[in-house]
């Protein structure tokens, strides 16, 4: 017989693929489920070292530790912690569950007196129309077990978007006080930024488009500050940097006429949110930072994860259509063209489009401010997930 404690015990499995994306999403979700729904979340992660970049307090050598009310467990192969099933298992982004876990589920299914946990595959976020038709469908397994595909998305037929209940009010409070931005920059060790300068955060993949924009920003009228951590995006600018990449340290800055490149330290997720809230434009990538940039209510460029046959451009197009749905055609066209040019690494085009960004910046900012409430569509992912589990 399952107890109330068992019902509140959920396991989330995350295989880290690209350092911050998968773990970024699952860590946010785990924290939110623990905090807002008082669930006993066990987050199994196969690469605690990468995880520690966004949770600096984490000790990668420990097999089990707790932060923000979430039990973080090392997912080794074979498991060095005994798996005890709860009421829900989430495999994040279609990761393969450990053998011991699937064996345990099969044993529970064979035992007529026991109910196996509800098994969910949390999928990637996409704005494509097919997501509506695939969300929450069962997936019949050879073993007779059933798992469900849970798709994040932008419509009420999907699983929604990850967003903490208090996020928008916290962001509004932050943005209402301009001094917060400068205080944050100082705290991050960034120097000589005036409140009227243009601040752009960058967390993209490698792209020549970024290098092209840096050329342009050197000669703009307004001072431009590029806030960029060491990593994939900075590799695109290595030709600009006066020292070898390995010698670059957070807090350093390099000036090129009107452009200053500031090297950011890695921050935790709350710090990253505040950075996005504080910049005028954010260049983000993948899924987690992409969504957080939307919640920042500031204009952004999305550098989408590249896929074979340029399929990522289909996904980009689908999102741009959703995002621009009630935006004036000339604004929508300009913003979409800029995003496309950035993703295609089209150097000249991205520069030309940026040069005319000023003309659409005000309505774009207004749209960015209205977007979060519209996109959330009355329910966030965690609440839809909890409801789905209740109804199952």
């Amino acid at each position, binding site marked *: 017989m399952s107890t109330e404690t068992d019902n509140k015990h959920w396991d989330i499995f995350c295989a880290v*693929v690209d350092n911050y994306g998968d773990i970024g999403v699952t860590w946010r979700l785990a924290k939110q489920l623990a905090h807002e729904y008082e669930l006993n979340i066990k987050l199994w992660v196969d690469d605690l070292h990468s995880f520690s970049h966004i949770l600096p307090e984490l000790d990668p050598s420990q097999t089990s530790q707790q932060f923000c009310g979430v039990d973080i467990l090392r997912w080794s192969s074979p498991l060095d912690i005994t798996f005890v099933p709860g009421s829900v298992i989430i495999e994040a982004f*279609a990761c393969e569950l450990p053998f011991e876990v699937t064996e345990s589920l099969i044993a529970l299914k064979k035992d007529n007196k026991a109910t196996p946990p509800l098994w969910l595959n949390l999928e990637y976020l996409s704005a494509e129309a*097919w997501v509506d038709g695939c969300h929450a*469908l*069962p997936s*019949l*397994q*050879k073993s007779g077990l059933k798992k469900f595909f849970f798709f994040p998305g932008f419509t009420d037929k999907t699983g929604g978007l990850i967003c903490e209940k208090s996020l928008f009010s916290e962001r509004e409070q932050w943005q209402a006080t301009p001094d917060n931005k400068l205080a944050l920059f100082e705290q991050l060790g960034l120097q000589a930024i005036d409140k009227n300068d243009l601040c752009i955060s960058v967390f993209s993949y490698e792209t020549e488009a970024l290098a092209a924009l840096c050329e342009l920003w050197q000669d703009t009228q307004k001072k431009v500050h590029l806030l960029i951590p060491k990593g994939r995006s900075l590799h695109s600018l290595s030709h600009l940097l006066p020292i070898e990449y390995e010698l670059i340290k957070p807090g350093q800055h390099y000036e090129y006429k009107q452009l200053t490149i500031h090297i950011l330290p890695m921050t935790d997720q709350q710090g990253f949110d505040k950075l996005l809230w504080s910049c005028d434009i954010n260049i983000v990538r993948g899924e987690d930072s992409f969504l957080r940039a939307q919640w920042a209510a500031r204009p952004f460029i999305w550098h989408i994860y590249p896929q074979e046959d340029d*399929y990522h451009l289909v996904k980009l197009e689908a999102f741009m259509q959703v995002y621009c749905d009630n935006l004036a055609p000339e604004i929508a066209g300009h913003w979409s063209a800029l995003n496309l040019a950035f993703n295609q690494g089209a150097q000249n085009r991205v520069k030309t489009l940026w040069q005319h960004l000023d003309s659409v910046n005000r309505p774009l900012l207004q749209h960015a401010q209205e977007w979060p409430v519209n996109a959330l569509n009355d329910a966030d992912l965690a609440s839809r997930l909890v409801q789905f589990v209740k109804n199952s």
Partner: protein
Amino acid sequence: MKTAHEIRPGNVIMLDGSPWVVQKTETTRSGRNAAIVKMKLKNVLLDSSTETTFKGEDKMDDIILERLDCTYSYFADPMYVFMDAEYNQYDVEAGNLGDASAYIVDGMEEVCQVTFYEGKAISVELPTTIVREVTYTEPSARGDTSGKVMKPATVSGGATLSVADFVKTGDMIEIDTRTGEFKKRV
């Protein structure tokens, strides 16, 4: 054993001890190049249908049932009638053909495979490639000859698909029945 990505309409797969006819497959791409395959399945024993989703690399037993090479003969609502080389006729329920029914046309000569379960014809698998006439498509809007610009078209049998912009009504085109995709003009 096949992956979900390799399963096609007409296959019969074994799940939880039951044989299921695959009536429809739809492959989409999730993040990081991963495929998602949505299938419409019909339980052969219970005569019930369900929609289900798989990861593209999920492995499943494609059960080898008795199969016969047959050609399409005629439609007697709600059954499609197929005939083998010895002129034996086999009735297959229209619902079991799934999307394949949109490629069935009178007089078609392609050899199909009819699958049997306990002596009953339960599904039909079309050849991988078939040729059909385009019964309607809009004239080329841009004069594109590269084959990269696509537009919708309807072919004999009723299937709709995207074809290259240079394709005209009346053209014969080759279609991949596994994906429903246009391959070339013939």
